[in-house]
């Protein structure tokens, strides 16, 4: 089962060893061993509270954890300071904040403080990133005025600038309509084939997982199983958790 695919050298992109997270006396995650490969879309599935989002936060270094998370480039060399792209389920922010899309991008690609303005080169770069996700002329819009789908795509573009060593998607389309969902995943799939970055995708929608993921891991405080999507979805424990036998997916 999990993980010492370490021997595969060049294919291995992120290698998580014995990761554990506690909150007070409560164990949220323990003995997580998981690896993701370049160009893989690995879906993390599990019941609510199984620790999927916590795992993503631990990978980002946002919360303290035990164990190690190591990143490797396509040549198999260790990356010390990996770049991580993160698209949250629902960005919790104050929707009336006067932060524009341009402010968000320019604040993270240059030294000039955004309260003094934006450099033309930075704006052009941000516009180019936004075009990649199918958005045009949105730079001057405030973040709070974007629709759910637009915001998720802005966040995806933001996650891709600079091009990350790994992309973490935490239920990225739960607030997006059907058309937007399709667009979003098409985009992620094309990015993966273009840049060969590993993608960790947390999703409750097994339809999406089946359609877009290339592998799946079933999580319940640790990795219960990691395999191809079909094998994971056919596991009795997974079918039980998601009630698959009842709905007949």
């Amino acid at each position, binding site marked *: 089962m999990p993980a010492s695919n370490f021997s595969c050298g060049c294919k291995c992109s992120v290698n998580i060893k014995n990761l554990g997270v506690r909150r007070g006396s409560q164990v949220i995650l323990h003995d997580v061993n998981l690896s993701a490969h370049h160009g893989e879309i690995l879906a993390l599935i599990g019941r609510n509270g199984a620790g999927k989002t916590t795992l993503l*936060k631990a990978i*980002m*270094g*946002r919360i303290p954890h035990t164990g190690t998370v190591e990143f490797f480039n396509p040549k198999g060399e260790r990356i010390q*300071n990996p*770049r*991580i*792209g*993160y698209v*949250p389920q629902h*960005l*919790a*922010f*104050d929707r*009336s*904040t*006067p*932060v*524009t899309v*341009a*402010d*968000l991008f*320019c*604040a*993270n690609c*240059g*030294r000039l*403080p*955004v*309260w*003094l*303005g*934006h450099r033309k080169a930075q704006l052009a770069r941000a516009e180019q990133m936004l075009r990649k996700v199918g958005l045009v002329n949105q730079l*001057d819009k*405030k*973040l709070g005025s974007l629709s759910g789908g637009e915001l998720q795509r802005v*966040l995806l573009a*933001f*996650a891709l600038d600079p091009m990350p060593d790994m992309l*973490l998607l935490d239920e990225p389309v739960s607030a997006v309509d059907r058309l937007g969902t399709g667009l979003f995943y098409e985009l992620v799939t094309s990015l993966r084939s273009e840049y060969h970055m590993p993608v960790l995708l947390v999703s409750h929608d097994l339809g999406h997982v089946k359609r877009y993921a290339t592998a799946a891991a079933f999580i319940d405080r640790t990795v219960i199983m990691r395999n191809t999507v079909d094998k994971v979805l056919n596991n009795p424990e997974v079918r039980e958790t998601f009630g698959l036998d009842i709905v007949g997916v």
Partner: protein
Amino acid sequence: MEGIYQFLDALLPFEWAEFAFMKNALLAVLIITPLFGLTGTMIVNNKMSFFSDALGHSAMTGIAIGVLLGVDNYLFSMLGFALLFALAISSIIESGTSSSDTIIGVFSSAGVALGIVLLSINGGFSKYSNYLIGDILAIRPSELLMLLIVLIAVLLLWFFCFNRLMTASLNPDLAASKRINARLYNTLFVVAIALIVTVSIKWVGILIINSLLVLPAASARNLAKGMRSYHGLSVLISLFSGVCGLIVSYYLGTAAGGTIVLVAAVLFFLSFIINRCRDKA
């Protein structure tokens, strides 16, 4: 200082500008208001207006500690206590055990109460009451210099750290993905507010310092189209309220701090109405 006075005399041939204390007050306003306008933007963005209010109240205890220690200048005891106070509040909020407004409320009341109790030990509380409303007309040149140094320090912080501060305030997880330590920047910001509140409280007053921090930024937020206009408007509104309020207070014979805040409050309602009309249009 003489050169600056002569320059002001040439620039402002008005009755109110004849007196040295008015010139000093004007200079203080020209330093304090941009400082407040600039930092106010992040206080409002981070929903920390209640927090900065509590910090102002904590100054009461800071003064009391200074009195008990027998020092002449209460600045350091205020600063020390404000820092302790600010860091204690933010670490308790981060532990997530109670809602933040409750925690701040408890600290704020305790800060004022402790200050009142300690100050009333040695008899009269009344000799400290000028701290409540502040007296910008009593500022001296050496104190102006101190304010100027704080302004420069905050400008440097805003120049070098603002982008990360903004991302961290938008969403800590998003910031973490860009390798920004939201907690570190939050602490830095809290320390900066403690410093600003402490050095200016004697001139602005415990009761109204927070209005001056929050009102210009809140007005600017009603009108802003992005971070640049937010900051620009906030600083302009703050400067305008300060200068306008100071002059009006001279002719009306009212307390300068309160008059400045009133001007800022009127501007806030104007910006609110403009924003409403624009939304409807």
